[in-house]
């Protein structure tokens, strides 16, 4: 829109020298107003549901805050220092939960980037029943976390679950404690999360795959490229823009994991599979120790921002390099 406005300006200047700057200026401020009007509804929502809670949360983190008590004494940065020097009773559990979140993310994100891509590559081919398979892979994503978790909690139960029962029939070990011991609990949580959400990433990959021009494959073939070379030099570069989106969305989703461990392992064994969100919810909403919980969320948010900056920088440089090369 702004491009047409600026390109129209010189033309106007030619026809009537003096009047030219005024309409340009007026239309720009008019455009700005229109833009703000369009943005307003979201800005209101953003302010009420994001900005205000962030500031309020920061304020809470400076107090020994419990909304059910008459007084909320100011404690300065105690909620933060307590988490760092271990003087807060929640320090240990909090750092354990951060570690658990890190572990879960590191295990899950690569799988959720690669497996859906393989699925999308298969789905992109032409074979009978393609639509059915597409629907099948996407289907679990439609389910809520409660349904998925309760379902798998029973399937994976170490003593009465179907998974171990069939493993036994096949002559495999049938007493694997899928939900009550490590590393099995992590394996289960990662597997269930991948099974549950891979459909979403696969659909996005699939859309991107269909955007890649067949001409490029044609040209590569003419140049004598084999299947692997075509994938490496045509498919992957074509997917790169989508990859940035998929990576950041998957990362955020994994870091925010809560429902699966709440319902499948109850954070156990012990508190090993308690994620940061789990610990924050428990501290703030069950124990009403909202000051400490807010301090935890602030630290958690900061670390998430940091990770996202790193990823952004990494991917942006690649992006820049690619553009440069093309030019």
């Amino acid at each position, binding site marked *: 829109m702004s491009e047409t406005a600026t390109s129209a300006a010189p033309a106007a200047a030619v026809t009537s020298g003096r009047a030219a700057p005024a309409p340009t200026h007026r239309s720009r401020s008019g455009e700005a107003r229109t833009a703000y009007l369009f943005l307003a509804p979201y800005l209101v929502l953003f302010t009420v*549901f*994001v900005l*205000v*809670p*962030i500031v*309020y*949360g920061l304020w*809470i983190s400076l107090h*020994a805050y*419990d*909304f*059910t*008590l*008459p007084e909320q004494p100011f404690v300065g940065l105690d909620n933060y220092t307590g988490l760092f020097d271990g003087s807060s*009773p929640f320090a*240990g*559990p909090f750092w354990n939960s951060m570690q658990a979140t890190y572990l879960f993310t590191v295990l899950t994100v690569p799988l959720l980037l690669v497996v859906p891509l393989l699925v999308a590559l298969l789905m992109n081919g032409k074979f009978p029943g393609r639509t059915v398979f597409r629907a099948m892979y996407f289907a679990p994503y439609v389910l809520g976390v409660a349904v998925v978790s309760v379902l798998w*909690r029973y399937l994976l*139960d*170490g*003593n*009465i679950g179907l998974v171990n029962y069939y493993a036994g029939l096949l002559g495999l070990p049938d*007493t694997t*404690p899928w*939900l*009550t*011991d490590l590393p099995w609990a992590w394996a289960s949580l990662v597997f269930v999360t991948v099974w549950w959400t891979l459909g979403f990433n696969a659909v996005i990959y699939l859309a991107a795959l269909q955007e890649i021009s067949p001409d490029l494959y044609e040209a590569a073939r003419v140049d004598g490229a084999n299947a692997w070379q075509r994938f490496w030099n045509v498919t992957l570069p074509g997917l790169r823009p989508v990859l940035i989106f998929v990576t950041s969305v998957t990362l955020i989703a994994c870091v925010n994991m809560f429902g699966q461990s709440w319902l499948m392992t*109850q954070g*156990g*064994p*012990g*508190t090993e599979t308690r994620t940061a969100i789990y610990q924050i*919810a*428990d501290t*703030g*909403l*069950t*124990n*009403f120790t*909202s000051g400490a*919980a*807010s301090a935890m*969320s*602030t630290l958690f*948010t900061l670390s998430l921002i940091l990770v996202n900056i790193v990823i952004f920088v990494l991917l942006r440089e690649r992006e820049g390099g690619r553009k440069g090369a093309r030019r």
Partner: protein
Amino acid sequence: MASLGLAGCSAADPLVDVGPPLPEQGYDGPPVELSYWTGFTGGDGPTMRAIVQDFNDSQDLIRVEMNTVQWAQYYQRVAAAVHAGKGPDIGALQIDQLATQSSRQTLNPLDDVLDQLAVSAEDYPSEVWDGGVFRDQRYGIPLDVHSLASYANRGLLEEAGLSGEIPSDGEGYLAFLEQARAAGIDEPFWMPNRWPAHLMFLSLLWQFGGEPYAEDGTEATFDSDAGVQALEWMRGVVDLGLSPANVAIDSQYTAFKDNRGAVTWDGIWQINDVGGTELDWELSPVPTIGPEPAVWASSHQLVLFKSRAPDDDKLQAGKQFIRYLAENSAAWAESGMVPARASAREEPEFLESTSSSIAEAVPTMRFLPPVPALGDVQAQTLELAVSDAVLGRVEPAEALRTQAARATTLMQANLEKFGVR
């Protein structure tokens, strides 16, 4: 972070107000609707619903709307609701939560209205009655007592040729379990690592002569010798192969209903649920593994919630409903609970019920001390120690020592928070 902001309520705190006296012949104001919150999600839910229905049918001025919230979420929701000015009028909650809820300013003291509610100390076992008091004020009217009990699968035992009585002493009990295993019930007693594992642990700890917490809320003492003995016994059941290892949440109960476990300890609130199966089963008090009989117990207590805008009509109507529930607590026996009122325990409705078989255990029932937020502390410490030890991840003594130290820290912080110091 955003979700924590939802508590953004006004400065107004809920007010103490028990309303004008309830007329002797009952509520006579304009028609009102009362909101009544409970956590009866198990086999006990339909019974309470029926009682509420009966009350609604018994008169036409008061209509009670019952809302069922899982106990696990009940206490946090009710605190948030009352403080947001959207709380219920009346509720039933567990006796060990009275201290917490009154500290969180959600409950009205009931001392001045006991005669309006037509209840008095003589009607109730002293522990249950006294448990309704916190810091010299009464907040709860006892509805029932409920405890852990032992369920036995008679059908399965008889099939294995074990038709005799199940021993109720420690040595005899283990011998019996060994016998059951020898007779073909591979894993007769499934040992859970989560709910109700901590209730089993508390029962055993009391049996071995320990106390889990200091009465004044200053420290956790569940790492005592009694605690270690209790937890070692629980782990021992797994080590002896009488239970499978790694029993996940709810599995021991599912296995019992599935004819795989010969006995299981669970709450008497499951009576109607087990009763709904094809099993041939019986209920008895938890065996005395330690030197003295003891069993974890709790009591549902009726409360009148505070409000930020008290309404005289609702308060009066609420008192009438509490009176009705207290007077009709024999009907509540159908839920599997033991009515708290002594007279109700002599009525045929109770004497013919399954739970009457554990009435003899009432004198051995033990309750947690009234310490604010103790339930939250327990969930973060004692329950984890029990879980870790039963799963065999940590030695019982060490698990208890670590978690008791943490519990003491949390309890000390709570003393400060709730203004005891």
